[in-house]
């Protein structure tokens, strides 16, 4: 897992829950590098699971809620760091469609070892959009948070409904603009 995810998670935890709560979670997680992550490194994803799990415990937060929050945080970072992907796009659905077709292929060029989820998107009509998250990492809540943040970014109030979550590796969302 890319180091950037770890550094951003820790940054979010520090901002949201404070340094000591974050440190407590890091300690409890018993991480090999004691939480010293660099964005350019690559780490075992189980470390993130342990870290996130400990942070949830420490803050008494639902893991899903935690990932959703993380989604909001990361989206804001993306907007700042990769503004180029947002240029010329005014419709959130256009942007969501581009994740699979344009953004992810570009990311893989830069980081060939990156492990990315797959998205299937389907435009139902002008106001609704179906997006399916497919990944063995089971982080659909993170994707949910990203989508929420995306709609908000484009000032497009919307209702996002999780259509099916029997298989945590394949979850569909129905986004309906309000």
């Amino acid at each position: 897992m890319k180091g950037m995810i770890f550094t951003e998670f820790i940054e979010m935890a520090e901002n949201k829950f404070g340094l000591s709560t974050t440190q407590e979670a890091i300690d409890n997680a018993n991480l090999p590098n004691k939480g010293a992550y660099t964005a350019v490194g690559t780490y075992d994803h189980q470390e993130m699971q342990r870290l996130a799990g400990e942070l949830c415990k420490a803050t008494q937060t639902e893991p899903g809620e935690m990932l959703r929050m993380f989604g909001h945080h990361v989206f804001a970072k993306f907007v700042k760091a990769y503004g180029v992907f947002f240029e010329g796009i005014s419709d959130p659905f256009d942007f969501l469609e581009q994740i699979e077709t344009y953004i992810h292929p570009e990311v893989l060029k830069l980081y060939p070892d990156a492990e990315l989820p797959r998205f299937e998107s389907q435009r139902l009509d002008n106001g609704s959009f179906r997006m399916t998250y497919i990944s063995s990492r089971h982080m659909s809540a993170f994707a949910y948070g990203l989508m929420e943040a995306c709609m908000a970014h484009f000032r497009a109030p919307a209702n996002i409904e999780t259509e099916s979550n029997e298989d945590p590796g394949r979850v569909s969302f129905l986004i309906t603009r309000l």
Partner: protein
Amino acid sequence: MSQEKEIEALKRALEREKEARKQAERIMEEKSMELYLANQRLLQINESLENTIQERTKEMNSLARFPEENPYPIFRFAGPEKSLLYSNKAGKRIIDFFERNPESADTLRWYEFLNNSHGCDQPLVQEFEIDENYYQFYSVCYADHNYMNVYGFDITLLKVTQNALTESEVRFRSMVENASDIIYRASVDGVFTYVNITAETITGYSTHELLSMHFAQLIRPDQQEVVADFYAAQIREKIKSTYLEFPIYTKYGNEKWIGQHVQLIMDEDHYITEVFSLARDITERKQAQTAMTRTATRLSSLIANLQAGVVMEDENQNIVITNQAFCNLFDLPHSPSYFQGKANTELFFKIKDSFSDPDTIWNNLEKALQQNKPIVNQEVLMSDGRIMESDIVPIFQDKKFLGHLMLFRDITEKKEAHKILQRSEEKYRSIIENMYLGLLQVDNDETIMDVNNSMCQMLGYTKEELVGQKTTQLLAVAKEMEILENVQVQRNEGKSSVYEMRVKRKDNSEFYVLISGAPLYNEKNEKIGSLGIHLDITQRKELEQDLMVARTKAEESAHAKEIFLANMSHEIRTPMNAILGMTNLLMNSHLDSKQLSYLDAIKTSSNNLMVIINDILDFSKIEAGKLTIEKVGIEFHKVMQNVINQLSFRADEKNILLINKIDHDIPDILVTDPTRLTQIFLNLLSNAVKFTHKGSVTLKSSLIERRGNLCRIHFQVIDTGIGIDADKISTVFDSFSQEDASTTRKYGGSGLGLTITRQLVELFGGRIQVKSKKGIGTEFYFVLPFEVGNVNDLPKDDAGIDMEIDLRGTRVLVAEDHQINQFLAKTILESWGVEVTIAENGLDAVNAVSNVDYDIILMDMQMPEMDGLQATREIRHILNRDIPIIALTANAVKGDQEKCLDAGMNDYLSKPFEQKDLQRIMQKWIGERKTVAPKVNKQEKTFVPEPEKTTSMSSELYDLTLLNQLALNDEEFIAKMKELFITSTPEIVDQIFESFEGNEFEKMSGLAHKLKPSIDTFNIHSLKETIRKIEKFHTLGGSKEELVNWLSQLKTDSGLVIDDLKRSLEK
């Protein structure tokens, strides 16, 4: 505490950051090293690449020398514009040449070659002549590289050698090909190996065909063996050269003669390698030879076979040729060849005694010899009496005398024939000269060329006066010029014709001639005029005109007779009408028995008189061919029964049995004229009853045959009466004849009855015959053909006539000028409760109609002021009224009825009419307008009770009691029911008729079943039973005759009910 904790956490976070930075720096260091190594590897690869390029460039440069050093031209062109990329030195010279000679043919071909090569995936090769050198260029196009290479080879030497060879070959070949003789080579066994073009023109075969042929195949089959043997010998004996002539057949089957030189070609070892031949077409020469031989043969055979005797001598007077005919003519015991080469004197010595005057012959011959001119057609008398015709003709060639030809023909028979012909011609000439027919020959200008004596006599001129004159001026009558011109046109077209014309004599009197004219031609077939044979037909013409006058007179008198008859019948019938009518009226007044018996006598006499008048009228109508046979459907049984009924009273009076025997096979319905048929049998039966005093009178009808819709019936009227004398029997059918005068006195009658009967039978297509024995009886018999009819042929309105209609209140206009008849009509009509208005003439009638609405008009035909026909036309066309108009006519002559109907009248009543006739007509026409009403009292409306009159079928046709009960007197419902009945019933009735005609009785039963409730509802008394019978006919069966009656009753009665219902609805 928490602050400490916070600081602790902050420290920890800082440590994490330091650790992370170190980690990051390590990673960066590793990545930098990786980059450096990669860069070093790239530099190495680049260096080795540059070395390779340098080596390759060197190699390329050395390779590039190859084309440059090549002595042959090499080029490379680029792009579609074929710009020159490269050319070697040799190439530059070529390009130079092209640039120097832009107009030369090879330059143009060069650019064309380049154009063709460009984009062509196959290499192209082409030769060029450049600066007296020859080059072959070879192009290779590299389409994907967008250029093409062209390689050249110098082929000058090759070309020069080739050209030299070709030239000599061409020269030699053209010599051989243009030879007028066939030149050919063949193998030793005769197969062609070479032929020139001339061989094609002479044999018709192509070179190709000849080269696959054997020489012998050309030779005419009958000569093949001879020719083959000839050449076999040449080869066998190795004869170097031979010449032979023989015929061949060309490809198209024409025969040609060939004169052929054949030379054997031999090698050093004298081995024959092939055959060389020169063959010439010698057909023309051969043909000329053959023709000459033939002509000579023909001439000698002509002379030998001539019927005339021929002797030809040469300039030395020696005999060249003579023939058998000559030897025969002069009875010489020698063959013709005996005299050949001998001196003519020897011949003449032998024949001179045959001539009666030999010296003349000698003189002629001498004369011919001296004058050298032909002496022809000389008649020579022979000592045995024969006559010869001789010609002596000198022969010259190019003015050189070659001898004489002498011909002798026996013309004895011809002379005889000519004499006979001359005599016969003289004979006919004298006949023509003396016969009664006039002959006149004119030229094309109508100028008289020749006439015979008869013609001169006819015209009163002498022959001299006529010849040279123009017929048009001398003989023609001005009025006939048109005929003459017409005749002239016909002659010019080469046509003959016969025509009648008036002609002027010398004394200017005119007479009629019948002329048979024909064009005349000369020997050149040119028309030189015409010849006419004239016959005086004045007498015949006069006769013809007399006959015409006589015919016109006869026709006039026949017409007068007809008018007289019509008038007479009118004049007699009108008073007879009064007499009979008044008698009838008088008989119903209170009279004593004596008066009644007087009246009875008057009535009988009047009736007899009417019979006689009717007979005379009928007779004259038949004589004038004015009586025709009507064609209507009749029910045969009814008609025959009616005849019997009419006479049964008289038969009963005389106590005679009247028998009606009808063959069951006779069809029920026939199409014929019932009135005239009835008349035939009434005449025969009343005669039979009249002349029979005891026993019986039998009317027997038997079917003879039936074929399709035609049948023939044999009728017999047999009595047991007084019979007819054998010597009178042949005249019984003659007009106005009775057996003897006493018969007339005893039995009465006009004597026309049987004549009329015979003529009526003939009108029907039969022939009446009689056999009789005095005192035993008489039988009249005949056969008549009939057309078989069906129900539809029966007159439809017959049933209506029997209806009794209340005539009370009917307004009748009687237009009649005869006062007694006025009174009669008025009395009868008023007795029926009719309102009668009298009009004195047609004009009154028209006026009356314009003022009052009458129900019916009875219109006399002949009236003063305006007759009935004119009055009718005015009522119809001027007043536009459609009131029924009935003609009252005393003119029983044919044509009157048509005149009535044409004028717009509806019907007619012949005077004198009887009360029942008038009633029938009134019922018929008023019935159409008036309601069918219940009869109130027969006594009241009939002036004279007539017991024999048929009673009406029902006093009440139908009633609505049941319907009223059903409808509880609801008027609207009843009206609807009536409408329903009116519309549906005719349809069902028609269907019933259709199914009857199609013999579909089951269907008919179903239809009757359907109609039954309506008939019950409307309580149609007459049909309640009938419809049930029709319904059950299918299951119970029965006679078809009865069924027909039921069906016609159904049709009639339902029609009447419908009519009445309609009227009630209109109200």
